[in-house]
């Protein structure tokens, strides 16, 4: 007809720009925005001296999510033609086979995206590297991060492409894609909820780690962690940067770069396999006829129905779980994020129901719902069978080198967490038990807890067996029964624990060091090292509540260097004696006497000190009271009395009972015994009959906080009591006596707001409250004690004194 134009090549050519440019542009824009943001963060943090490597690393947490979302988005763009019937028809009529078309649209863009993403991660790793005190090799980090980058792209792109292929409409593609992505999570979540109940594992921790935790806590030894390996998306929320801790033991192998490299490589191989399966069974049979049609595929309908059904079941289960066990969300942020995810999902369901009526079949697929119920029942069945002995398994005693338990809340002598629970925060060592009989004892405790069907107390109890070959076996329990607590409490009488206290009471820090704070930590380190203790509380650094107090006043809180004493009587009036009031020698004698007495104290006497006289605290705080004002590191101001309050709550406290003859002898000799004798007169008293308490976290607490000098000068006074009963009712009231900035000391009344919605609630609506005479109260006070252990039925004695203060004691049954 005519001569062929020069523009015609004579061969079919592959047009790079048409396949490549959309993805490159979109991806580059996304990454450029992220990069600009990160650089701005860096510039600002440096400019305003806000540098905090941890904060900066947190910025990277969502990078995998961005990569994943980019993969999804780009696959939707790349395979958009599958939703446009005319375009799809045209492209297919061009003569390329479906397989060729898929490969061109899948592999080439994916590989180009992987390369771009790796480049992006390399840049960010360099920035991150510049920010941190790095102990890892930069090349190691490049490799680890590059591999970590690839998986989200693979997952996102594959899911998006597959969804596009089997769905006729964009809305369905999105819904189906979300369902596929959320399916492992739904199963994981459901399993987690059930395992945590029946295996007594980490319910809230699992939620937290699923979402946005930085995964650095030691409390992850749970079946949920094992499950996480089987979910490729689990890696998305992890902090992929900052592998600074090179010396992680095998116990924390899942926190190492190696773990992610291996895991991601395995999953990448799996996904490549999945892609080939998709190519063989779905691509080949792809029918353009289904374009523009509403989810006709059976697979689409089943998965679309299965995921929401599982999620809803998990949500319902969790609700029951929370309701029954009065569990609190692990954090507001986690609760919020969970809420957002669930809200988004439910919103999507509502949108489908309202606006895409023909897509209702996606959600109400009978088979999908039946499968979800069957899966739920299966998980339930596995859970109630104890997961085949997972929770009760412990290694053979001969193979065990040592055993450690997570903290010594149960073991610190008569320290009571009703005093803010501070001492275990302040000094909670993980004690290593190496003696065979102690190891057997712990094994028995584990077996008991695993079989125990009572869940009285919510607290974390972790047993870690270190074996001779260096490997580690860990089991955690979140719920404990009363009896289990008592058994754990029995460990207090073991030789290892007694040695621990002996060490604490007799070792001294090097007070001549450059800074007293440093000296304290040095001492701690020595203490740990010399005594083969695994750890002593990290909360010096981590716990926000104690940041200012501990940072600045740690040096005053040493027992070893104690020069001060606080004596608290059963009327909870605390008398503070500084170095002007008490000889150093007396304190040393007191320490020795306390140890001798504690060696002979039984667990029952420890937990239920019915012959209690009061509590004494040791500290090095004489200098504290000489200063008017203190300044903490972060610029916050604290008065001496505020620090004293912290000090009072944060010190080692020793319950003194009439059985402790050595201690009483020293106290009497030094004329300190008189501070246990109350001079206050009861004006009004009530007995509150408590119901069985279920939460260790929300123990009933009652304390007065009156700090006076030796001369009776009141530094501050507060009194409040609160209680969390089975019915979830809070009893709470507080009133204080403190110095106002402009006025003299005066009373104020508090509506304590410890947690959401817990306003003043006196009296407990459902509690049995009986008024008694002051005389009866005085008598009852003899046997009452200041401590309380969760899980016991008991009564409280609430007394208001004539001077306006009040306190609450526990009356034994």
């Amino acid at each position, binding site marked *: *007809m005519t001569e062929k134009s020069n523009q015609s090549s004579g061969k079919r050519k592959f047009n790079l720009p048409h396949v490549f440019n959309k993805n490159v542009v979109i991806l580059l824009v996304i990454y450029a925005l992220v990069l600009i943001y990160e650089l701005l963060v860096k510039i600002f943090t440096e400019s305003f001296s806000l540098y905090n490597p941890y904060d900066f690393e947190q910025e990277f947490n969502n990078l995998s999510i961005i990569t994943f979302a980019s993969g999804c988005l780009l696959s939707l763009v790349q395979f958009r033609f599958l939703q446009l019937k005319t375009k799809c028809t045209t492209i297919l009529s061009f003569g390329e*086979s479906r397989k060729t078309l898929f490969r061109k649209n899948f592999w080439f863009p994916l590989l180009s995206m992987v390369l771009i993403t790796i480049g992006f991660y390399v840049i960010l790793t360099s920035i991150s590297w510049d920010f941190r005190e790095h102990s890892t090799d930069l090349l190691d980090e490049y490799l680890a991060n590059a591999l970590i980058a690839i998986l989200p792209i693979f997952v996102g792109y594959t899911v998006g492409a597959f969804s596009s292929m089997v769905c006729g409409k964009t809305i369905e593609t999105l819904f189906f894609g979300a369902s596929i992505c959320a399916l492992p999570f739904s199963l994981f979540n459901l399993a987690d909820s059930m395992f945590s109940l029946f295996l007594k594992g980490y319910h809230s921790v699992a939620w937290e780690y699923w979402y946005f935790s930085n995964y650095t806590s030691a409390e992850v030894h749970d079946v949920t962690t094992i499950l996480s390996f089987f979910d490729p998306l689990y890696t998305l929320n992890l902090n992929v940067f900052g592998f600074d801790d090179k010396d992680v033991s095998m116990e924390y192998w899942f926190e190492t770069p190696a773990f992610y490299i291996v895991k991601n490589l395995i999953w990448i191989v799996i996904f490549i396999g999945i892609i080939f399966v998709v190519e063989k069974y779905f691509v080949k049979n792809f029918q353009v*006829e289904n374009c523009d049609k509403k989810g006709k595929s059976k697979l689409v309908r089943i998965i679309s129905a299965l995921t929401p059904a599982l999620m809803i079941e998990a949500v319902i289960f969790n609700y029951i779980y929370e309701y029954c066990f009065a569990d609190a969300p692990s954090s507001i942020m986690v609760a919020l994020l969970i809420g957002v995810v669930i809200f988004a999902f439910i919103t999507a369901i509502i949108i489908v129901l309202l606006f895409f009526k023909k897509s209702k079949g996606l959600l109400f697929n009978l088979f999908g719902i039946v499968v979800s119920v069957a899966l739920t029942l299966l998980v339930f069945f596995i859970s109630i069978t104890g997961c085949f002995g997972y929770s009760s398994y412990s290694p053979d005693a001969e193979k065990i080198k040592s055993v450690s338990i997570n903290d010594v809340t149960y073991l610190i002598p008569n320290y009571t967490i009703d005093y803010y629970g501070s001492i275990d925060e302040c000094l909670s060592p993980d004690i290593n038990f190496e003696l065979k009989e102690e190891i057997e004892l712990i094994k028995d405790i584990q077996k008991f807890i695993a079989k125990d069907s009572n869940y009285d107390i919510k607290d974390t109890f972790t047993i870690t067996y270190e074996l001779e070959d260096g490997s580690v076996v860990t089991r955690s329990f979140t719920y404990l029964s009363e009896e289990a607590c008592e058994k754990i409490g029995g460990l207090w009488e073991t030789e290892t624990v007694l040695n621990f206290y002996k060490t604490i009471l007799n070792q001294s820090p090097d007070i001549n060091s450059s800074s007293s704070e440093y000296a304290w930590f040095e001492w701690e380190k020595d203490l740990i090292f010399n005594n083969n203790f695994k750890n002593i509380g990290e909360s010096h650094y981590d716990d926000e509540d104690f940041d200012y107090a501990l940072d600045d006043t740690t040096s005053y809180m040493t027992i070893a260097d104690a020069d001060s004493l606080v004596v608290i009587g059963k009327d909870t009036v605390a008398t503070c004696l500084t170095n002007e009031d008490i000889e150093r020698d007396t304190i040393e004698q007191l320490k020795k006497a306390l140890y001798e007495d504690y060696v002979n104290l039984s667990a029952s006497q420890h937990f239920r000190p019915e012959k209690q006289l009061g509590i004494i605290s040791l500290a090095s705080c004489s200098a504290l009271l000489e200063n008017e004002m203190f300044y903490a590191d972060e610029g916050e101001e604290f008065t001496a009395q505020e620090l004293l309050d912290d000090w009072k709550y944060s010190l080692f406290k020793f319950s003194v009972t009439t059985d402790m003859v050595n201690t009483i002898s020293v106290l009497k000799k030094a004329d300190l015994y008189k501070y246990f004798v109350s001079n206050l007169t009861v004006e009004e008293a009530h007995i509150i009959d408590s119901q069985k308490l279920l939460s260790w976290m929300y123990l009933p607490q009652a304390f007065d906080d009156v700090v006076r000098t030796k001369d009776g000068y009141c530094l501050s006074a507060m009194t409040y009591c609160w209680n969390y009963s089975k019915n979830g009712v809070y009893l709470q009231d507080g009133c204080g006596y403190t110095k106002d900035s402009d006025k003299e000391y005066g009373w104020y009344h508090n509506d304590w707001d410890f947690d959401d919605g817990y306003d003043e609630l006196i009296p407990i609506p459902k509690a049995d409250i009986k008024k008694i005479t002051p005389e009866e109260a005085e008598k009852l006070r003899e046997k009452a004690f200041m401590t309380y252990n969760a899980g016991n039925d008991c009564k409280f004695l609430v007394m208001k004194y004539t001077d306006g203060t009040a306190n609450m004691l526990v009356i034994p049954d």
Partner: protein
Amino acid sequence: MIEIKGVTKKYGDYTAIENVNVTVDDSSVFGIAGFNGCGKTTLLNVCAGVFKAEEGAVFLDGADAFDNSKERKELFYLTDDTWFPVKSSVKGSAKYYSEYFPNFDFEVFQEVCDLFGLNSKSNIKSLSKGMKKQAGLAIAFGASPKYLLIDETFDGLDPHKREILRKLLLEYINTTGASVIISSHNLADISDLCDHIAIINGKSVILNCAIEDISEHYRKVYLTFENSVNEELFKGVNYRKCELTERTATLLICGDVEKETEKLGNLGADSIKTELLTLEEVFSEETEAITDDGKIKSVFRKKKI
């Protein structure tokens, strides 16, 4: 040559076309006619390899068309709703298509555009339906395919453009020896243009023959008798339809027309007259698409404006 052998295509439980057998020779234009939704587009989609037939197959010079990139390089399928790259001009679209058709000839493309009076620099978005059709046709001819499939060929084109297209197609097959399949509702255009025609009625092909053979297959015979007649009289005749009045009978016969006419001549009619059928009449007869005037009149009988 395009061979459609025993093609059956289903959408779920619904059978769109069933056991279709058609052969399109080289240098010929094959027309597909049928009422709306009868399966014309489905058949073309199967021919183009877009749809996979449940049964049977389409062969392009002996090779299966489905998922056969080698043979389908030579095939161009112009759909009724042609897709053009977003925001592109006519020429831009041609460039896009040229990437997939190695023999694309831009001079042909430009000349066809000129014939249609179409500015190749115009943005596709600004074009009317007919102009988009012209653009698609220009690209189709530019692609120089050996097999050209055009759905709803004349849809949206004015009479002048139809004539141009008709001539272009004839010129194209004469020059290139291509096999062309067109579908259309406009039977007049098809009858002028096609060598062969297939009429699809619902699922299957009810007529598949050369245009010139249609007159040999269908005949209307008018018979006048001295006395009144009834249908019993025509018992031995193979007829499609019979209309009787007092003394006259009108029969539609198909198949071996000569033989049947001879039979009718032996029935003693006073007069016998035969008449050829137009393609429209054949279409109506075959598809039973008879308009009920009474029903049409009754639609608006209650409507007084």
